[in-house]
């Protein structure tokens, strides 16, 4: 009888048992991924907690390789019957598919052990209680009360344990923690403000400061004026810059996107301003670190854009084999038709203070964040979306007042080419591709194409 492990070592042992089952079923190679999550999230709205949840979850998947035929099966049950069924199902799938001629081999262990990233894990986050999260929510609400606005948001704490083991000897395992507090404060006369913080250690999140920032923005955006859509220079706060990096990562910085001809990336092509340097770095303690990918390969630091020039893309095993290069450690769990993604993007800081960024606008807009962005023309990275929770008119370098939200339809490539100043302060935030470390930026032209009523 096999039961669900409670330690990393126990999970590794169980993964090895499944590798044995795969070998007995005829696998020439096999890979097991275990993801065990302990996650909780406290959500508040109308200045009270309205949803409050926790989950304990674990899932094991087996990539069964028979020559170049591959099958994947997964389960959330860990008794011997379930594990045998996983091996049999994956084997049956492999028997029914044509060979994948791009597949050469699963990864072998690297020359050096995968370094342990102490910065990826916080005991305080792993031990976070409902009371701790409620305390954070109450701190945000208290700031909203003091400012005469209403608080909405969430406080999440997550511990994720990942084990990757394969029949060639790869044994990658570890736990990482993340925490995130976001809040939208809404005030009278249409005011709305946003603030967010993400960290490995939940106790480093200053809930009161986040609450103060959002509440101040909510008060400052009351009675927003209408403004005509058109081309404006802008300052994007960090919350908006995250979307630009995420979208560029999603559309372009993946080897698969390049191989399929749908990426804007050509190595050596200059697409951004000299001020733009972006890398993916799973070891950077300023972000939300990850030591290895879902193929058990140590994450390499990849220079994606250096002084505006495209200098790299991220690889997983299959895309690397296609190009005859090593994987950079950016694989996702198999089967993965989406290809590799940069999950730890970091943008270099600049030299400008926030006041200097805004001070450089003769007449432009200060944008706090974007909402519901979506590519309209992926290869040109033309994206549409809305501004939200804090949009301001700036004249002669000073904020003169709030404006109603605008729709934009803008090439993010043109935008990074027009970056004329980069903030010296950076924030760690959670984007849709993972932890992102970004500064605020000033962009000389941004195309707004529509308006809304608030």
């Amino acid at each position: 009888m096999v039961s669900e492990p409670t330690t990393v070592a126990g999970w590794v042992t169980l993964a090895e048992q499944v590798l044995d089952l795969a070998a007995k079923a005829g696998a020439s190679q096999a890979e097991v991924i275990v993801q065990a999550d302990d996650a909780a999230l406290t959500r508040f709205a109308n200045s009270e907690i309205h949803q409050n949840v926790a989950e304990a979850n674990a899932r094991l998947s087996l990539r069964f390789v028979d020559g170049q035929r591959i099958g994947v099966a997964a389960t959330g049950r860990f008794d011997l019957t379930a594990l045998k069924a996983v091996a049999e199902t994956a084997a049956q799938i492999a028997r029914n598919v044509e060979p994948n001629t791009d597949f050469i081999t699963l990864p072998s262990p690297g020359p050096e052990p995968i370094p342990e990233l102490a910065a990826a894990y916080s005991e305080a986050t792993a031990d976070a209680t409902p009371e701790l999260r409620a305390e954070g929510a109450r701190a945000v609400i208290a700031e909203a009360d003091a400012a005469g606005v209403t608080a909405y948001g969430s406080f999440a704490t997550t511990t994720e344990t990942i084990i990757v083991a394969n029949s060639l000897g790869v044994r990658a395992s570890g736990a990482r923690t993340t925490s995130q507090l976001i809040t939208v404060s809404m005030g009278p006369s249409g005011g709305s403000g946003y603030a967010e913080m993400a960290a490995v250690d939940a106790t480093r999140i200053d809930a009161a400061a986040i609450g103060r920032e959002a509440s101040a923005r909510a008060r400052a955006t009351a009675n927003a004026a209408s403004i005509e859509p058109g081309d404006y220079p802008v300052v994007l706060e960090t919350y908006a810059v995250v979307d630009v990096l995420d979208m560029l990562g999603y559309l372009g910085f993946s080897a698969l996107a390049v191989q399929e001809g749908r990426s804007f990336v050509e190595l050596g092509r200059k697409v951004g301003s000299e001020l733009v340097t972006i890398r993916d770095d799973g070891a950077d303690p300023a972000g939300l670190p990850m030591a290895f990918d879902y193929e058990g390969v140590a994450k390499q630091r990849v220079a994606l854009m250096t002084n505006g020039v495209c200098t790299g893309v991220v690889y997983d095993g299959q895309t690397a084999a296609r190009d005859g290069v090593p994987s950079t450690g950016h694989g996702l769990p198999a089967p993965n038709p989406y290809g590799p993604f940069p999950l730890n993007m970091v943008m270099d800081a600049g030299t400008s203070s926030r006041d200097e960024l805004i001070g450089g606008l003769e007449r432009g807009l200060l944008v706090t964040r974007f909402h519901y962005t979506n590519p309209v023309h992926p290869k040109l990275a033309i994206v549409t979306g809305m501004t939200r929770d804090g949009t301001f008119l700036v004249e002669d370098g000073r904020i003169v007042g709030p404006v109603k939200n605008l729709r934009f339809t803008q090439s993010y490539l043109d935008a990074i080419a027009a970056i004329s100043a980069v903030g010296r302060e950076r924030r760690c935030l959670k984007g849709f591709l993972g932890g992102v470390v970004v500064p605020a930026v000033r962009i000389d032209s941004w195309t707004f194409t529509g308006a809304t009523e608030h």
Partner: protein
Amino acid sequence: MRDLTERALSTATVRGATYADVRIVEQVDESITVKSGRVEGVAAGESQGFGIRVLVDGAWGFASSNRLEVDEIDRVAAQAVRIAKASATALRHRVQLDDRPPAHGTYATPVVEDPFKVSLETKIGDLLAADQLASSVKGIAFTESTYAALRSHTIFAASDGSYTDQTITHVGSGIETNAIEGDEHQRRSYPDAGGGWQSAGYEYIRGLRLADHVEALAEEAVALLSAPQCPSGLMTIILDPSQLYLQVHESCGHPTELDRVFGTEASYAGTSFLTTDKLDAGFRYGSDLIDIVADATAPGGLGTFGWDDEGVAAQSVPLIKEGIFVGYLSSRETAPRIGRQSGGAMRADGWNRIPLIRMTNINLLPKPGMSLDEIVADTDDGLYLRSNRSWSIDDRRLNFQFATEVAYEIKGGKLGRLYKNPTYTGITYEFWRSCDAVGDERSYVMLGTPNCGKGEPGQTGHVGHAVPGARFRNVQVGVGKW
């Protein structure tokens, strides 16, 4: 299972819950991806777990686990109560639920051909045949074909005595063809972007007849590379069902979610312009032709079930009647706040998520009179837009912008040349008020999406939309610089 649900409810109640419910969910899924004529990935999965939701001192708590064991049920029930007590430290209004009668019974999606019993060889063969045909068309850069099936078996029990047993089966399949030249990347999809989805068996997949459509589709993707750019201006547009369903989803489905109206999604997806003062006040959402219902009983819809995840029976709720806003998607907690009973829209994405108000099947009803072809014939000058490529709408669901894969010029009642990169934008209620023709039953088709995002932590909803085609006047087309 009844012993486990009773254990969960009794433990929660003993520890202080005034209301508790538990869902035990077993799920199986399978997926096949074919790219450019080659099988890229085949996967099968199973998941099992339970979630316990409790009210303590008028506050919610929820905890869940994949370990379906008595000791773990006790631990999770206690954890849910502890979480609810933490919620109560920041509570301003005690939760009150409506008084729906206890739910009892079983429900299963009608399935003719069980997708999990069709051989893998057949399923891969069907997909591969279509994809290889498409990828052989000259000028195609890459193709991607997908098939997926999902079956959830859910036991729901509540401290009011409710006990239901449901088995829901969803299947989906589709193909994308991509043509790339220089900076131009054009795509055409069938049956629509993201594939066609229904609650059904493999008979739905066979009925899609992918292989019959893909060559013409791929040729159109290639033709788009050299097609002129879609013009800009105020124009008449006709939306094919493959685009209109997403227009309904974004600008009618989400704004009518009562939790959004009350602000409980404000920090993530946003709120809604459809404030409660507009209910029963004659607010004109659209033209007289617009009748929209939330119908959880519609055959084949991804939002079709026996009971929602609060034990409220499936029903059809009018949302917009002859253009006037008349109802919301609601829950047992939100409905009493507007003096109504829950409309049964609470659905959870698996055992480890709480139910949220989700769309069921948000259907734009057909209008007797003109077929979609006759609407085209009745149009002197305009564009016919097909298959979604991009979507975006503001946080109160007013300003939207969509892109479609293709536009066809309409001149003198006939479809003409292709235009590439079409986009259109508008304000929700202005757009729906501009509708002057809705197709009849002949174009009415059940579509849907399996990837509607909502909530924190994130949940992915499966929602249905039955729609015909429809015509709209004076719409801003061709947005942005190209």
